């Protein structure tokens, strides 16, 4: 309750407001207020360890020092496949680093490799995130069970193979070890055969502003085995922080606290709508937008926004959601942490929707779209998919939209891709290809 009261008080004090007609914000004053309010929230709340019930408290000078020393630019991956991840600012002349893959989505064993190859083959994808294996040789993978080790290692073997077979062996694997929710899985892949030090692993902040010894063990792992690290922050819009403005403050505070407490190199932003889950809600996109602007102006960090959709692959809806998320994120100085079809629940995903995401990103960047133009576009796109929140179209499994042997999209799925691309071009996106 302290969190709610503090976030509400700060929201009123800074006059933070969510306007459902302004999803991509250009409001510098409010963005600065979110940053300052988030700083005060972080100082007041600290980070609670559920294991010890101790609050990890920071001085403002410590949080600001952590921001100062956090990397602003890093080379992810190896050799010709390496890409630069940046702490973005407005007008810095660089487009976002595009991450592709089915983030944590449970994939059947027999399809894991072809699904991952469908992403690895997409040339506009800069880094890749794995799906997860929930069964190994027919056996369930269980939290804290020995198969978490096997699953995480197999996941890495197959992702690496997907990259090699696609001619991109040095590509960065982001959030390696999606098949395990515990430190056991992370420790199991700290070896060049699995997660290289040029890859990264993820350390969640528990909602809201909490951690525990399992998460802190991953921090320790990251220090000892110097792969890159990224936080995962999922503020719940409508949850303990309150509505969209409260969630923006909580997200900001969590970024600040995890920069200091975890020492992560990157942050994954994933605001969750309390009813619809998806980031593609107006509230979710606004939270990302205002927080992206807040950090770009006040303390640039490598922020990667999750782009989770309600719809699944093989549908027009997922492409509209994809376009809206891509426009909103690129116009808010964010990077992306991949497109999670069906909110990562069903294996109805493929490289083609990730291609579309990257197409839109590059178009928006090249045409130097302003936040105001981006906002108008997002509002139009939202109208095309909003019905899906109540009546989701989960789409089709990979084998029905791709040839799993040739790893090529089937014609019907390609036709939808081209049709939606034309529609999106008609409302203002100037595609390059």
């Amino acid at each position, binding site marked *: 309750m302290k969190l*709610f009261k503090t976030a509400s008080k700060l929201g009123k004090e800074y006059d933070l407001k969510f306007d459902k007609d302004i999803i991509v914000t250009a409001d510098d004053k409010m963005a600065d207020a979110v940053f300052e309010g988030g700083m005060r929230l972080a100082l007041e709340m600290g980070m609670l360890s559920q294991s010890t019930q101790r609050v990890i408290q920071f001085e403002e000078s410590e949080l600001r020092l952590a921001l100062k020393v956090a990397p602003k630019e890093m080379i992810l991956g190896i050799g010709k496949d390496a890409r630069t991840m940046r702490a973005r600012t407005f007008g810095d002349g660089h487009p976002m680093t595009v991450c592709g893959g089915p983030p944590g989505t449970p994939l059947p064993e027999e399809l894991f490799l072809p699904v991952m190859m469908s992403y690895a083959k997409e040339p506009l994808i800069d880094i890749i995130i794995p799906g997860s294996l*929930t069964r190994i040789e027919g056996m369930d993978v*269980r939290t804290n069970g020995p198969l978490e080790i096997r699953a995480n290692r197999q996941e890495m073997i197959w992702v690496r193979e997907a990259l090699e077979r696609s001619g991109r062996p040095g590509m960065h694997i982001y959030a390696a070890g999606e098949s395990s*929710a515990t430190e056991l899985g992370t420790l199991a892949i700290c070896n060049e055969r699995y997660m290289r030090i040029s890859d990264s692993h993820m350390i969640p902040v528990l909602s809201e502003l909490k951690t525990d010894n399992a998460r802190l063990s991953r921090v320790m792992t990251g220090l000892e085995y110097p792969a890159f690290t990224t936080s995962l922050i999922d503020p*719940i819009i409508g949850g303990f922080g*309150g*509505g969209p403005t409260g969630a923006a403050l909580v997200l900001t505070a969590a970024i600040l606290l995890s920069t200091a407490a975890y020492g992560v190199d990157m942050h994954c932003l994933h605001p969750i709508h309390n009813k619809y889950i998806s980031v593609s809600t107006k509230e979710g996109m606004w939270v990302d937008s205002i927080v992206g602007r807040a950090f770009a102006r006040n303390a640039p960090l490598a922020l990667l926004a999750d782009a989770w959709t309600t719809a699944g692959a093989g549908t027009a809806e997922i492409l509209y959601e994809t376009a809206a998320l891509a426009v909103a994120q690129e116009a808010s100085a964010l990077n992306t942490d991949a497109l999670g079809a069906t909110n990562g*629940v069903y294996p109805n995903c493929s490289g083609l929707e990730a291609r579309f995401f990257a197409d839109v990103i590059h178009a928006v960047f090249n045409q130097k779209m302003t936040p105001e133009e981006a906002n108008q576009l997002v509002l139009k796109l939202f109208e095309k998919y909003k019905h899906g929140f109540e009546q989701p179209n989960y789409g089709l499994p990979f084998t029905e939209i791709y040839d799993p042997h040739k790893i090529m999209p089937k014609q019907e799925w390609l036709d939808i891709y081209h049709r939606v691309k034309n529609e999106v071009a008609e409302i203002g996106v100037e595609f390059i290809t």
Partner: protein
Amino acid sequence: MEYHKFDIVALQDIYDSMVEIEDEKTPQLAEKAFNDGVDVLKIIDALTKGINSVGDKFEAMECFLPELIIAAGIMDEAMKFLRPELEKKKLFVGTSGTIVIANLQGDIHDIGRNIATVMLKASGFIVHDLGHDVKPDVIIDKAVEFNADVIGLSSLLTTSLPYSKDTIKLLQDRGLRDRFKVVMGGAAVTPDYCRDVQADGYAKDAAQGVRVISSLLSGK
């Protein structure tokens, strides 16, 4: 949100105060109404309708989880002095049923379960929240201890889902499967998975959970 109207001003005030989530005022209004001679059952009805309206507001994102929790606290506070009166007069307010709810073994994500707990309480269920990372045998022991009607299982992690299979298998092994309805929810759960493990119900969110459990217990 469905707005309820009452013939008696005091009941309207109680209802409106609950909908506005006035945590100090609402129990005071309820106590005053009781002292002024308003029927205790009618007071409880106004409070119940009020908290249901708060649930509707939460679903519409017009209020947020902490406010829902405060509303449940208001109800508890008011019932502290209303319940003895019910017992004194040998009146009985029926509950919708008894539920034990838990996050499956290995899953430490509380918020979804918290929301479900509050919304179920608001709908008149007695809910025993067992917390997170709960082993199957503990869930079953508690369901027996509290004489539950329903076992609610929540999971955000796909790797914790297999423990739902264990729970249902253990219920079968102990000859208790028919005694409890098992309802599953949480981000990792799908209707197909529920069918596979032979759970009795699936809920995509807390509000649907209330509807599914109500329907299961009423035999619809």
